[in-house]
């Protein structure tokens, strides 16, 4: 039981990190509370599903590398387009943050059901069930595990750390070692100042959409190696955890966000298990535990800054 808990704690921590770190960065640059991250995860997973079906039926094998690249490109492109079509025009109208958030809700519904339609059409064209797809095996990963002498190890145990690490590495390298990355950080800190110092804020924002959405889609790819039934609800089912973690981090601090990812993953895996073993509670209380953490966060340590409310109530609590 404990080993199982440890494994899922490990996997889910990585999954949450892969989604929330780009989310926080994206918020700092774009200032949109963006519920379409749910779509990014789902689109990442479904690019993998469609590709898997195509590759298997045409070539008989499938590659993780190819999947990651396509998921990244598809999701990144969707994010850039949604910025151009929705968020950029709204930001130019100088609407309040609430309106951006409401717009992201609208976009969420549209993208969600577009995917449903796409997978329905693909299902009937290919005469297979894509709305509930089985776990995907990537042949290049199998090759890798065999080489490393890890025969019989679940792919998720390899793919999760691999992609999470890759995501962090890409983020770190892009932000710290490239000029455009430093521009992203400058905009995240202070977009007015950045634009005064000659940074093309518009282009940096577009790039951020592409990069963060692309990285988020990796979580969807990770999911395909873990879940036994991949459905277009993947992203939606993660949104409570993802935003709870992001809000624990106050949508600004990466360290707090990472801590939040571990906390939520721990509460979900160990907490649920403990409660069901010792108190006989059903495992379906999992989301309630996450929700309790959310409420506790709001009460004990409400996020400061932009995600916060009228600041005077926090400065009072922040007395040290």
């Amino acid at each position: 039981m404990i080993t199982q808990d440890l494994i899922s704690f490990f996997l889910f921590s990585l999954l949450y990190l892969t989604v929330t770190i780009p989310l926080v960065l994206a918020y700092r640059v774009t200032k949109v509370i963006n519920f379409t991250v749910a779509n990014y995860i789902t689109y990442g997973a479904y690019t993998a599903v469609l590709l898997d079906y195509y590759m298997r039926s045409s070539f008989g094998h499938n590659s993780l590398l190819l999947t990651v690249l396509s998921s990244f490109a598809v999701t990144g492109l969707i994010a850039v387009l949604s910025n151009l079509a929705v968020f950029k025009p709204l930001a130019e109208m100088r609407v309040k943050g609430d309106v951006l958030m409401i717009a992201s809700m609208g976009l969420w519904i549209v993208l969600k059901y577009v995917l449903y339609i796409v997978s329905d059409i693909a299902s009937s064209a290919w005469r297979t069930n894509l709305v509930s797809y089985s776990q995907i095996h990537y042949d290049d990963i199998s090759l890798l595990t065999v080489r490393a002498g890890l025969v019989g190890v679940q792919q998720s145990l390899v793919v999760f750390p691999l992609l999470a690490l890759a995501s962090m590495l890409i983020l770190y390298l892009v932000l710290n070692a490239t000029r455009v990355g430093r521009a992203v950080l400058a905009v995240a800190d202070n977009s007015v100042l950045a634009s005064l110092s000659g940074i093309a804020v518009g282009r940096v924002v577009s790039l951020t959409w592409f990069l963060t959405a692309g990285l988020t889609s990796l979580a969807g790819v990770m999911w395909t190696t873990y879940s036994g039934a991949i459905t277009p609800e993947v992203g939606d089912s993660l949104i409570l955890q993802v935003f709870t973690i992001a809000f624990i981090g106050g949508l600004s601090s990466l360290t707090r966000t990472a801590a939040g990812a571990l906390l939520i993953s721990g509460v979900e895996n160990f907490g649920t298990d403990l409660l069901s073993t010792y108190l006989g509670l059903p495992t379906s209380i999992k989301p309630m535990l996450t929700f309790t953490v959310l409420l506790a966060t709001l009460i004990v340590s409400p996020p400061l800054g932009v995600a916060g409310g009228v600041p005077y109530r926090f400065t009072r609590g922040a007395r040290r």
Partner: protein
Amino acid sequence: MIDVLGFLITLTTYIGIYLVLSLTLTLEVSSGITNFGKVAFYGLGAYTGALIGTYLPLAITGSRASPFDVNGIQLLYTISKSNPVLDLSVFLLSLAAGFAVSALFGLLLTYPIHRVGSALVGFTLLSTGEVLRLFYLNTEPLGESKGFMGIPNPFAWLPQARGAEALYLIIVWCFVGLTYFIVSRIMNSPLGRILKGMRDDELVALYAGWPTPLIKSKVLALTSGLTGVAGVLWAYYFTSINPNMFTPSLTFNIWAMVILGGIDSIVGGVLGTVLLASVDYAARFVIPFIGTTLVTPDYLRWIIVGLVMLVVLLKKPEGLAPRRGGVSKL
């Protein structure tokens, strides 16, 4: 032969229940509460109503039948047919309890959400709705995924089914009238101006001397209570409820209605609701006749709801019937 009168009665009942939701949302939005959890309070009301409407008659008549098996449902139907006093009083009790439970729940939720900005308020309420839905889905005494099926119609004892429908319609619309009265009186008063100030700049409202957290709590408690009653009305109208009826999509549907008509315009909200709810209902009515198609019409319907939100926000942010004039009508 299509039953035109029946169609119209159902449509207007449906619109009426949606109107309560959109009117209360208009008041919430104009007070700066981004309520993405309408469905939480609505569902809570519906489940409270269903709980009372099924367990109570069975308990009073001393039956040991479960409201989830055929015997229980049959028994509930017989009771509602034969005992008008019990049937009606259970309904009235449900209305009151639906209001009280939802209002109390809204009041309790304001404690954590006072501390945070509107984005977090929206998300917290959204997750509240989802968590409640999962709670219904996994709780045996609430019927799990099947939900309640034998909620008695409060006018089942009337000999004519059409009469029962019409009476119910009148009750729904009386409540719509009450909600309209409450919302418009508040929005067109000095309090309405304070709410608007609070929405635009909470700090200024505080500096003007208004205890904004307290005011927000009261508004959310009131609107949640009314939303809860709408839930009860839905449960007794449909006579069966299940967790699937209370997904976040319902909340977005109402947001789309309010945005379409014009945020913080009462008339706009009503217009948007009538338009979208009619389309929605007509779609529900027509879709079964289409049969199986390549593209599920229901998905298209949701895409349209989302697009309506986006297009209005982008092209006509003030909505179809924007609010005119000042806050006070002297």
